[in-house]
């Protein structure tokens, strides 16, 4: 299979390197396994910055640093876990092309693409089904916050690039390194695993929300993403019991993920625009969703803080001289009231 528009690999085809240590049994690797060091209800630190791409209307960058920082300098080629890195650019609103039918609302089109080096196994250039699925999820999450009626006949492109994704499971417990994603040892009923996608999506929601504000597209509230999971561990934080709920899970840190929920949450309106639950949570499902909402509220704090700082950077002195007063006298705000009233 050749792609005439890109540089192709050599004809024989290549395979990712196989490390000697990954061939040994999982038991002997247990010492290298990352374990959760933060409390079950503690989320990872979030680094968020807006306005990275001046040629876009709005843009943002989000990073979740490594959950357990490796000892420096690292001595191995196999990173224990990865740290999520996302960039988002928003282009538009721009007029829809003539070929498109009339639309009374803003037409959102969301794109999510993983970089080839985003995961342990190299990814392709063409968008695959998972990326399209995530983009559809992101679309529903954003659709609920954008005030689309203000831009009839217009479209906006939300482009998220995943520079580094979240892993679905610990590499030592599976054949991930040999390019086989099919079975993770002790996998839940849904087979695929794919737990990392939820963290990626939650990050996508938060970063897109920040970029949306940077682009100046009217939204009813800030939307933020959060994940919670029911995990099973034999030796970890809750000894004896083994099963419990954690916020913002990093799948490599747990032996088994039983169920996970991801929400896109509007805190000040107490609304959920997107809910995605996987696995069998049983009767704990309400707790699980509440946990995800709690995680989303945590990331919203970072989101709001960064946007406030970005606002100060953008509008400089005006914002410093007393933000409440300025907000009240901003002409845009009073216009809004007239229009809706």
């Amino acid at each position, binding site marked *: 299979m050749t792609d005439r528009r890109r*540089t192709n690999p050599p004809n024989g085809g290549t395979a*990712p390197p196989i490390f*000697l240590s990954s061939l040994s049994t999982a038991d002997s690797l247990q010492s290298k396994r990352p374990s959760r060091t933060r409390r079950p209800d503690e989320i990872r630190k979030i680094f968020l910055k807006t306005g990275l791409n001046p040629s876009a209307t709005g843009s943002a960058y989000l990073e979740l640093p490594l959950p357990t920082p490796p000892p420096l300098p690292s001595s191995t*080629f196999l990173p224990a876990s*990865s740290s999520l890195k996302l*960039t988002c650019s928003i282009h538009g609103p721009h007029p829809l092309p003539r070929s498109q039918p009339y639309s009374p609302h803003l037409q959102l089109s969301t794109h999510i693409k993983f970089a*080839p*080096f985003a995961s342990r196994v190299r990814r392709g*250039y063409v*968008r695959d089904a998972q990326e399209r699925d995530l983009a559809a999820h992101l679309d529903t999450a954003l659709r609920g916050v954008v005030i689309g009626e203000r831009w009839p006949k217009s479209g906006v492109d939300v482009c998220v690039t995943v520079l580094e994704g979240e892993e679905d499971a610990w590499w030592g417990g599976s054949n991930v390194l040999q390019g086989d994603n099919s079975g993770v040892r002790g996998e839940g009923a849904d087979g695929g695993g794919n737990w990392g996608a939820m963290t990626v999506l939650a990050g996508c929601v938060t970063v897109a929300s920040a970029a949306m504000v940077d682009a100046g597209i009217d939204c009813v509230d800030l939307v933020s993403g959060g994940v919670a999971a029911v995990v099973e561990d034999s030796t970890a934080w809750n000894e004896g019991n083994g099963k419990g709920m954690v916020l913002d899970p990093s799948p490599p840190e747990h032996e088994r993920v039983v169920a996970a929920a991801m929400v896109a949450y509007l805190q000040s309106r107490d609304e959920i625009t997107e809910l995605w639950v996987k696995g069998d949570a049983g009767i704990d499902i309400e707790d699980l969703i509440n946990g995800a909402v709690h995680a989303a509220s945590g990331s919203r704090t970072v989101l709001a803080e960064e946007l406030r700082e970005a606002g100060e950077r953008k509008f400089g002195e005006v914002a410093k001289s007393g933000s409440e007063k300025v907000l009240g006298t901003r002409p845009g705000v009073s216009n809004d009231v007239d229009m809706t009233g």
Partner: protein
Amino acid sequence: MANSTSTSILSFPPQTFAALSPSAFLHAHLNPTSSQSSSTRPNRRSPTEFRVPNINTSSLSHANGSAVVRLGNTAVVCGVRGEILKAEDIPKTYNDLAKSPDETDEEKELNYTTIQELGLLVPNIELSTGCAPQHIPGNAPSAATQSLTHRLRSLLYTSRLIQSSDLRIWSRPANSDIDPGREEEEDEGQDRAPRIKAYWTLYIDVLFIALDGGAFEAAWGATIAALRDTKLPGAWWDADREMVLCSDQLEESKQLSIRGLPVSATLGIFVAEKGRSAKAAPNKRLMRGLGDSGATHHKQEHGAEAWLLADMDAFEEELCQEQITVVLDYSTGKTKILKIEKNGGTFVNIEEMRHMLRLAEGRWIEWKNHLEASKR
């Protein structure tokens, strides 16, 4: 219309002026009316001032080498990843001339072509990441992307940056004192001469996060920085398992040896529109931005004014009819030109070309300092 009553009051904010009449806007900046102010571009750089590169390396956990390069508002991420091509998988029998893992420098030079014949470098540039409004994701690579990728690949091969000897994996550990135990495991019956069992293939992926001109220079800079950061794990042929195995220990890894340090510099020629240049003083120097060395200029037949602009941003790239890309290597103390690409226009003569090369040499020093600082 507003201008029917009073033309003197009509004034635009700079952005509007730039959007309405970009060429005149740039010309007004380069040719200020007051004589004491020097010509400054709309991005506040002087005509021959390059943007300072900002380089970060080793930030991606799943790449063997990576770099983030920022050039003003252009931001590029490059990740290099090694995968293994087994010698037996190569469709046509390929006769590698290399005889042993310990080649002399001359032999390395002779056997260089392997890398190109097998296509062991796989560079790809991705522009459709939403880096600019014209590059929206979901489309096949545009003509611009394909041409950039092609230029990157051909330069990687012609500059002979990476040596084939670094990419060969032999049937015996190249350096037997790495792990003597491993060698004993090998079959005694087999002939002891080392054989090439596999090759490393380097996937070089360049992603544009933000694009504001200087695409090739940024992509090339990121590629160089990432390759200089690349470490390939120690690999050997395991006869029992009949596969290539790698060690995950960093101390057994091998830093990719990069030959020389080619650096790309892009310059543009901006020619003022005829209507405006007629108003300009006719006896002024035609080619601006060349400093005093370019004082002797013959008159262009059109009589138009031209400026030399270094490292254009997206706005200037639109307006420059003529673009020159120079790739040179100064690391041996002598200027080695790897590539000059000049397209369009008749405004550059030999004398000016020399001046541009001098500017590119200055640019080389700037890149080198930043590349070395990023490595530590």
